[in-house]
């Protein structure tokens, strides 16, 4: 057990080392941003379960491990090792090894010349003027210690700039590879995506690990969605079963911007995925689609903070979870409707399947409404594989494992159907299929009862606003 002081001491050591060598160390604004963020992290430390936003997720395992910043492991990864992580039919994939951009391992084909796809470290050194107006301007380091920590160590990750009016048909894929080390290691990849007015693009973040070992990756993506943009973002988590992973996607949406976020959490030991859109322009639309499938002792936490800041915006959240073994899932969907955001239409649905007696789900809607002409609905369901459905399929000749898999797949198909047909969806479908087959093979009978909690929403004034709760 490491005390809080020792813990901070270890981070201080890492930070002092980092600051001396990091890209952009001579830029006063960046230096100040990193220092402020580190100070903020020292001030608050890691969250505990007494913190409302972390009620269901205990990060003491992260807090108590003395991580060091991962060494540069880019030389140790070969192109061949990454073959299995390529996405069929996709020409561009930027590879990051423990957060560092690995040009040699990346594929950069079929992207329009006017789109800038690069590494953040490189852009900080070469064109800091393009970075300064955006980096760290949207993320709130005061709300979240992990965001502060990431910002303190912000150096490398992806930088993408899509100029005004550009239609990027090819998905821009980012592959984050954690390599593991003898000693516990951490990385803090930082991505900045700026999509200018009226541009269309799709981004994929794929997180994988090559070896086991104690790794802690803490990713932040700031995405600026200009007016009238149409953007999609995929977050795929499939690291090894010992990995700790925290990621935050912060989206700043302009007027009539249409944004879609897909999260698919399959791997990792402890995963927390924060999706935080701010609908900052009138008429914006935001769809947050998620699927999490946990087994063993996995802990998969989905945290959404949807902020409606301007009138006539719509947001929809749909999350489906499948949990087996001792897996623990969390759905925490917070919606804040600011005073000016009249005519807001916000919807939230979370459906869960628990396959074992020891699987657990905590689902918590939280609505905070400060406008008076809004429509917000939420609902959560928790169920099991239905014995009747299983028998129905088997009575038609489909064997038990296939029938289970078919039923699980049917449950996930709702999420898949929200993804646009194409290579990324096929890739995701393949990942889910493999995961479900494993799960169906290891299934042992139906559970008799599971632990489920549905927290009362803490919506203020919300009862007056056609709030609906359904539990089937």
């Amino acid at each position, binding site marked *: 057990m490491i005390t809080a002081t020792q813990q901070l001491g270890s981070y201080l050591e890492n930070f002092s080392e980092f600051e001396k060598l990091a890209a952009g160390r001579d830029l006063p604004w960046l230096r100040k941003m990193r220092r402020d963020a580190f100070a903020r992290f020292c001030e608050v430390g890691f969250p505990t379960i007494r913190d409302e936003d972390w009620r269901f997720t205990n990060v003491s395992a992260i807090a108590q491990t003395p991580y060091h910043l991962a060494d540069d492991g880019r030389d140790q990864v070969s192109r061949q090792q990454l073959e299995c992580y390529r996405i069929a039919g996709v020409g561009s994939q930027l590879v990051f090894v423990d957060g560092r951009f690995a040009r040699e391992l990346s594929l950069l084909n079929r992207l329009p010349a006017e789109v800038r796809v690069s590494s953040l470290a490189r852009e900080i050194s070469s064109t800091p003027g393009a970075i300064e107006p955006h980096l760290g301007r949207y993320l709130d380091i005061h709300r979240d210690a992990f965001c502060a920590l990431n910002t303190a160590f912000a150096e490398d990750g992806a930088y993408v700039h899509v100029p005004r009016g550009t239609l990027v048909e090819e998905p821009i894929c980012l592959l984050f590879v954690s390599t593991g080390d003898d000693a516990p290691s951490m990385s803090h990849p930082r991505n900045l995506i700026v999509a200018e007015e009226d541009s269309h693009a799709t981004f994929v973040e794929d997180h994988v690990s090559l070896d086991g070992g104690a790794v802690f990756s803490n990713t932040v993506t700031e995405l600026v969605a200009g007016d009238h943009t149409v953007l999609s973002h995929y977050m795929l988590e499939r690291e090894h079963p010992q990995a700790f992973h925290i990621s935050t996607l912060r989206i700043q949406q302009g007027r009539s911007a249409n944004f879609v976020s897909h999260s698919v959490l399959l791997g990792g030991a402890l995963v927390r995925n924060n999706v935080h859109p701010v609908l900052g322009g009138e008429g914006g639309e935001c769809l947050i689609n998620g699927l999490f499938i946990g087994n063993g002792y996995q802990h998969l936490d989905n945290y959404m903070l949807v902020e409606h800041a301007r009138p006539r915006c719509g947001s929809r959240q749909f999350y489906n979870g499948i949990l087996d073994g001792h897996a623990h899932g969390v759905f925490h969907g917070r919606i804040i409707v600011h005073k000016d955001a009249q005519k807001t239409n916000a919807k939230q649905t979370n459906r869960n399947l628990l396959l074992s007696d020891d699987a657990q789900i905590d689902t918590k809607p939280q609505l905070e409404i400060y406008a008076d002409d809004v429509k917000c609905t939420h609902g959560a369901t928790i169920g099991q594989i239905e014995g009747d459905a299983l028998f129905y399929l088997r009575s038609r000749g*489909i064997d038990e494992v296939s029938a289970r898999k078919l039923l699980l797949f049917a449950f996930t198909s709702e999420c898949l159907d929200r993804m646009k047909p194409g290579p990324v969806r096929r890739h995701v479908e393949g990942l889910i299929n493999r995961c479900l087959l494993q799960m169906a093979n290891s299934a042992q009978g139906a559970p008799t009862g599971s632990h489920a909690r549905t927290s009362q929403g803490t919506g203020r004034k919300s009862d007056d606003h056609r709030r609906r709760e359904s539990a089937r």
Partner: protein
Amino acid sequence: MSLLEIKSLHVRVDNHEILKGIDLQVNAGEVHSIMGPNGSGKSTLAQVLARRETYAVSAGEVSFNGKDLLAMKPEEAACEGIFMAFQYPVEIPGISNAYFLRSALNAIRKNRGLDEIDAMDFLPMFREKLKLLDMDEKLMNRSVNEGFSGGEKKRNEILQMAVLEPKLAILDETDSGLDIDALKIVAQGVDAMRNPERAIIVVTHYQRLLNYIVPDFVHVLVDGRIIRSGGAELALELEEKGYGSIEAEVR
């Protein structure tokens, strides 16, 4: 050798004996009807034959096509050629009807050592069966039974039967809740499948369906036992006198 031979079948559910010694022989080409009041054990018998595992067989034997049916899992029984049309067809959101049926057909074909049928070859055969049951093709792209009306669900069961071509079809109260038009369509669909290689067991509460599917044999099941067997005329007698009087006669 009969296609189906049931000998002294006893079945318990939650320590309560539902079937108290059933003996029944069904030959290929025959249509049998099992009639009885609510709670007599009709559906239990159908479910046991379809190998629903929640029913525990406490004594007796069932052989199908010379094999021990009670040792089979539901999917094995289906592959051997048993099909039960459900009294309450299950809704399965997220799986399309067409995909489900093709998966089932291919599972059975694989078991019989036949090649799988791909979507292209499946379609024409499928359309023909749809026509037989007067079903809208649109239903095929919808999720299995989801949002189907009662009549559509029952027709969907018979459609599955027509596609899977079982050796023994068991209709578990397929007539319940059907209006007369739907009943006729369902009955015609079943009747069209009568042939010398196939046996059909029609489990029903009422005689009406038997006007359209005329059985070779009728068995009256009361309180877990077959108390009388006879020809098609027995169904009419039941309709007239009710189960009570036949029960009284037997006692």
